[in-house]
């Protein structure tokens, strides 16, 4: 699965703040949720196969493993809801810099903002996921 919906914040002229439209943001979030649902489904398939090889699962682990199904179903559902919102949200926009301040995952911020306003974020080069 690929994530292709690149958002281009409004090009900011000097002295102006760049913005992201609500519709584009909802589309991008929908794609992120869809991608995460896909990952959860892959984990679910892998676990399902592995479970047939395991003879005894401790009760607490048995209970906790059931969460993966709820995780997958919830992400798929949220993706669907966000897709609906993306097609029905009213016109409007949000300042890219303020969005940057609330997104903690570097890759998510870059996907959402397509590299704009990077100076607003601290970065960590270690690992594929960087936390602020």
């Amino acid at each position, binding site marked *: 699965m690929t994530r292709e919906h690149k958002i281009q914040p409004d090009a900011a002229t000097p002295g102006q703040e760049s913005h992201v439209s609500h519709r584009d943001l909802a589309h991008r979030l929908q794609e992120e949720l869809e991608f995460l649902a896909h990952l959860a489904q892959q984990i679910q398939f892998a676990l399902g*196969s592995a479970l047939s090889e395991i003879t005894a699962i401790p009760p607490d682990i048995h209970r906790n493993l*059931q969460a993966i199904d709820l995780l997958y179903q919830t992400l798929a559902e949220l993706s669907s809801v966000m897709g609906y919102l993306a097609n029905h949200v009213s016109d409007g926009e949000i300042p890219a810099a303020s969005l940057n301040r609330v997104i903690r995952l570097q890759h998510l911020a870059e996907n959402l903002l397509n590299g704009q306003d990077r100076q607003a974020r601290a970065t960590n080069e270690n690992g594929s996921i960087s936390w602020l």
Partner: protein
Amino acid sequence: MALRDQLKTMVVDDMSTSRGLITNALDSFGLRNVAIAADGQSALQQLSTNPAHLVISDYNMPGMDGLQLLHALRNNAATRNVGFLLITGRADREIIDHGKKLGMNNFLKKPFEPAALRAAIEAIVGRL
């Protein structure tokens, strides 16, 4: 021969992890005669040719949900009397009441531990 050696069980769940966890638990109870279906239609087809004593079904499945499967089972002479255990993440009163009206024998709320599954099964078929 013990009940667990004779009991034919079918597990219906679209989620592979849930199916694996349930069948793993059934195996630990000594239940070896277990069929698996990933959706309600597949379950009905399998049960028409290979009847079971007990169906353990998830509620939330695409296409035919657990209670629609129960309804179909109760309206077929060949499967009318099969034991039915519903497993659901939402034990809403509405779902449970509807299930009881359709002839659901027992239900279990997720997440659950194997002991709870065993107790729910034994409440339907007797001591394993």
